[in-house]
């Protein structure tokens, strides 16, 4: 029996103009799981992330987090005519007491407990390593503009700084904490991004290609690291990745998408031997 459902993605379709990037995606993630989303380049994985975190408003479908709907939409306006996906009528009306269209900005979604990292690292370039992590705790403040400006929140500020420092120690970056974030080597920048995301105190962590550009040793370290932070912070992890070793090693379950559609899901061993998955990655051998 699956643990409490943390993320529920239902029939999510994302259409840009005439192109469907994510097609009728349905996924579930339970508390404490590490779930991977894999697929060839351009399959729509980051777009799926963007639909979950509020960067995009899905064209159709529903996303709920810990039982509450955080995104819900059906083809409206120009999309009504253009929509070429499925389940166009399923989300027209909402159940009693709920709204038919739900849309939130990414910062609200982060405040609910969903944090993410980016495929192309997006650190705050003008800040130091320490400041990058410290800034991400801003959303958990209880002080307001006046108390923050006039230093009436000294206790809270001190706590934020201690927490940021502790996070840096956890990821092993406290030695470089006053260095400009952009001066770090690539692998350390990736770790910094994860530390920064952790600073928002998430329950669900979305990692977009965390191992990109890493060598096998770094990838191994990352694998151990992800397991550690799941334990230490009680996280649920959803990751996009291309490094198959990492994926097979660490995932409890895997979803595979290609051309925006889910083509397989299940435990690593099942997925690995699924002929459709092999075909998607390697192409079909027409001669045998």
């Amino acid at each position, binding site marked *: 029996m699956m643990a409490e459902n943390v993320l529920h993605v239902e029939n999510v379709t994302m259409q840009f103009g005439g192109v469907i990037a994510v097609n009728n995606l349905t996924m579930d993630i339970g508390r404490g799981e590490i779930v991977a989303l894999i697929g060839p380049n351009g399959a729509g994985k980051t777009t799926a992330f963007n639909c979950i975190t509020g960067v995009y408003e899905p064209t159709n479908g529903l996303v709920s987090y810990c039982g509450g709907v955080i995104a819900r939409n059906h083809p409206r306006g120009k999309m009504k005519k253009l929509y070429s996906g499925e389940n166009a009528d399923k989300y027209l009306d909402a159940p009693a007491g709920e709204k038919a269209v739900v849309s939130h900005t*990414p*910062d609200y979604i*982060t405040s609910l407990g969903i944090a993410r990292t980016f495929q192309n690292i997006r650190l705050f370039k003008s*800040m130091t390593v320490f400041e990058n992590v410290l800034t991400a705790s801003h959303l958990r403040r209880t002080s307001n503009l006046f108390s923050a400006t006039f230093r009436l929140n000294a206790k809270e500020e001190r706590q934020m700084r201690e927490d940021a420092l502790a996070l840096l120690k956890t990821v092993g970056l406290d030695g470089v904490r006053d260095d400009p974030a952009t001066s770090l080597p690539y692998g350390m920048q990736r770790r910094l991004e994860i530390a920064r995301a952790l600073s928002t105190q998430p329950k669900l962590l979305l990692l977009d290609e965390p191992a990109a550009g890493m060598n096998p040793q770094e990838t191994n370290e990352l694998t151990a690291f992800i397991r550690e932070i799941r334990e230490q912070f009680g996280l649920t992890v959803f990751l996009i990745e291309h490094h198959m070793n990492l994926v097979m090693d660490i995932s409890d379950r895997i979803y595979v998408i290609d051309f925006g559609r889910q083509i397989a899901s299940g435990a690593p061993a099942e997925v690995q031997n699924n002929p459709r998955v092999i075909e998607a990655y390697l192409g079909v051998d027409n001669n045998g």
Partner: protein
Amino acid sequence: MKNKKLRNNILTLILIALVILYLSWLQANSSEHSYAIAILERSAVYAVVAVAMNLLTGFTGLFSLGQAGFMLLGAYTYAILMVPEASRATVYRMFQGNHWITFSLADVFGTAGASAALGMVIALILGGLVAALFAWLIGLPVLRLKSDYLAIATLGFAEIIRAFFQWDTLGPLTNGANVLNGFPYFSSVMSFWLVAGACIAIIVLLLRSTYGRAFRAVRDDEVAAEAMGISLAKHKMISFVTSSFFAGVGGGLLAMYQCMAQASNFKSSMTYEILLIVVIGGIGSITGSVLASFLFTACNEWWLRFLDDESLGVPLFRGGFRKVVFAVIIMLIVLFYRKGIMGDRELDLGAIGRFFRTLPSRLRARSRGKEAR
């Protein structure tokens, strides 16, 4: 580390004390130093507005060209509220003495001593609040625009505000296109800098707080900032309203300096000058903006005046040359010293100290190196 901080703080306090002493001495000998006093007063005004603009443009990344409009709102609020009721009939004579505001803060607080000063400060704050209110209204639709469009939209709003303040129908309130004067003002250069200092100090405190970090995040990468839970709409608005509040206070200070308020003074060229001051000082440096305000005013009003002097007999020197030279210097800075005087760093007293202390040893190393060759 703690000793360094303590030492720097003590040095800063000593510096501030010296400045206060200097300003008091100047004021005491005001008749011989009227030029210096005028420049210091004017640079106080520009310093406030430049730092406020830096908060918005340098630290939050929002390119707004509406400063003149907010200064205008602050100047007029101050002037309108502070003209004594007895003088109003004369001031509003172009409108047959009609005036809509019939109470005056100057009457409430009197015209002498600490009470008068309190009245002036309150009027300045009210000016800032009016500017902040308009900023909030304008910001609601405008802050989500892309940077170039935000610039033009805020420029447009500033022009619209100016047109309204020059409108005859609002004459009994604003005195239309005529000058508003007769209100009390700060008589000492010290007061200007006290107010300016307080404003700048508050902005610095804000920038060093968690909100300041949020502003910088918005500037560095909006997408990442949002993903880290920082609401773009909310923080852009906070920055915009705060910056406009202080621009309004700056406007009130300007009215006091000029002893008058007139809408035609607040053209977009004033915004451009503030922008250029911010660029010269360094976008993202508070001390840079303060230094540049002083340099700009001093050059403009005093040090470069000789360029306008035909009697010197140098070819090219005549009226208007000063501004041309000035404009060329600005272009040189924009093109070759884009970081401005301070870049995005602040004045580091420790660094200056180190520079001088290590001078002898560095010079010795240099000469040794030369001998070795």
